């Protein structure tokens, strides 16, 4: 009987917390926030309880795609210092369970959103999960240095999903919010890749600094930061936001460009400007998007 008792890779050492970690809680918090801004910016009103449940469904959908991403990327996560402690490479959760967990939650979140809001929002959420898992994780991530540029569409969709959850439509204004996150993604991730380049090279992920070198990446970061700063003011010009937003977008955009300029002009071995830009990029998106609901609550707009 003793050979039966050989420890197998069952789920026996995983606690509920490890499954929660599969949902990428920090990414999920950004998704909740941007989807919430999309909901607030959308005209019209739904029952606050239904809106809260819709937001929850979007969050679960984002978490599910995170679990499916960890299922697919377990091999490269294991060799990167940033991701080696994730539940699968840490040996806590078996790969197949992450796939089942993510797939199950994907279906559940889309169904819940369809019930709590409408089919447009549910369809967009399903497309977001599909895009992140299949287009980005499975197809593009290991294929091209444009991986996170195109894949960024998945991260940019939540405000559109949130908007659609309120109105049942996805008009131009919603896609402006999409565009801001979409243009924000390359400088954000390339700044990270500049100081984690060794990780990506070891894992064989063709991130821009690995393929085209740091100098080219810095130029592209700077170019994107200019386009991002310009797109940041667009919500004011389509009437989605007011003067406070315009001031914030100009100030934060100028700061972003300066931070990207410092990255561009830094000495080759100086990683600090890239770290600073990475940190500021997170603040940028949070602050810029926070002004949209803040203006409404202060009675300054809408």
């Amino acid at each position, binding site marked *: 009987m003793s050979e*039966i*008792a050989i*420890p*197998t890779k*069952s*789920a*026996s*050492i*995983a*606690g*509920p917390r490890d*499954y929660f970690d599969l949902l990428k809680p920090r990414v999920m918090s950004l998704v909740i926030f941007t989807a919430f801004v999309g909901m607030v910016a959308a005209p019209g009103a739904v*029952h606050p*309880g*239904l809106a809260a*449940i819709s937001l*929850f469904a979007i969050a679960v959908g984002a978490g599910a795609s995170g679990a499916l991403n960890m299922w697919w990327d377990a091999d490269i996560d294991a060799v990167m210092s940033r991701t080696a402690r994730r539940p699968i490479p840490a040996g806590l959760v078996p790969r197949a369970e992450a796939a089942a967990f993510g797939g199950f939650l994907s279906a*559940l979140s889309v169904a*819940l959103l369809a*019930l*709590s809001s409408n089919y447009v929002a549910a369809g967009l959420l399903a497309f977001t999960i599909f895009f992140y898992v299949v287009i980005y994780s499975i197809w593009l991530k290991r294929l091209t240095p444009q991986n996170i540029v195109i894949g960024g569409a998945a991260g940019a969709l939540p405000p559109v999903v949130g908007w659609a959850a309120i109105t049942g439509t996805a008009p131009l204004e919603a896609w402006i919010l999409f565009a801001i996150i979409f243009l924000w993604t390359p400088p954000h991730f390339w700044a990270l890749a500049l100081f984690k380049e060794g990780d990506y090279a070891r894992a064989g992920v063709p991130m821009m600094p690995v393929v085209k070198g740091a100098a080219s990446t810095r130029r592209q970061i700077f170019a994107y930061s200019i386009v991002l700063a310009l797109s940041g003011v667009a919500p004011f010009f389509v009437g989605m936001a007011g003067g406070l937003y315009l001031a914030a977008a100009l100030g934060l955009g100028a700061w972003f460009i300066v931070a990207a300029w410092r990255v561009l002009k830094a000495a080759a071995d100086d990683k600090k400007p890239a770290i600073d830009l990475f940190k500021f990029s997170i603040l940028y998106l949070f602050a810029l998007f926070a002004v949209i609901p803040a203006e409404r609550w202060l009675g300054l707009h809408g």
Partner: protein
Amino acid sequence: MADLELKSEDETKLRNRRNLAIALGLVAFVVLIFVVTILRLGGAVADRPL
């Protein structure tokens, strides 16, 4: 045959916690669907022919 293995005390404890989390998740989902149903029906539930 992993299910037939004798589990250590710690493993059993963790399995119980996983099972509890699944049970709570299931209950939460049921409650959520119920709440969505009630909210979507709203006052219209009284309008049906009796």
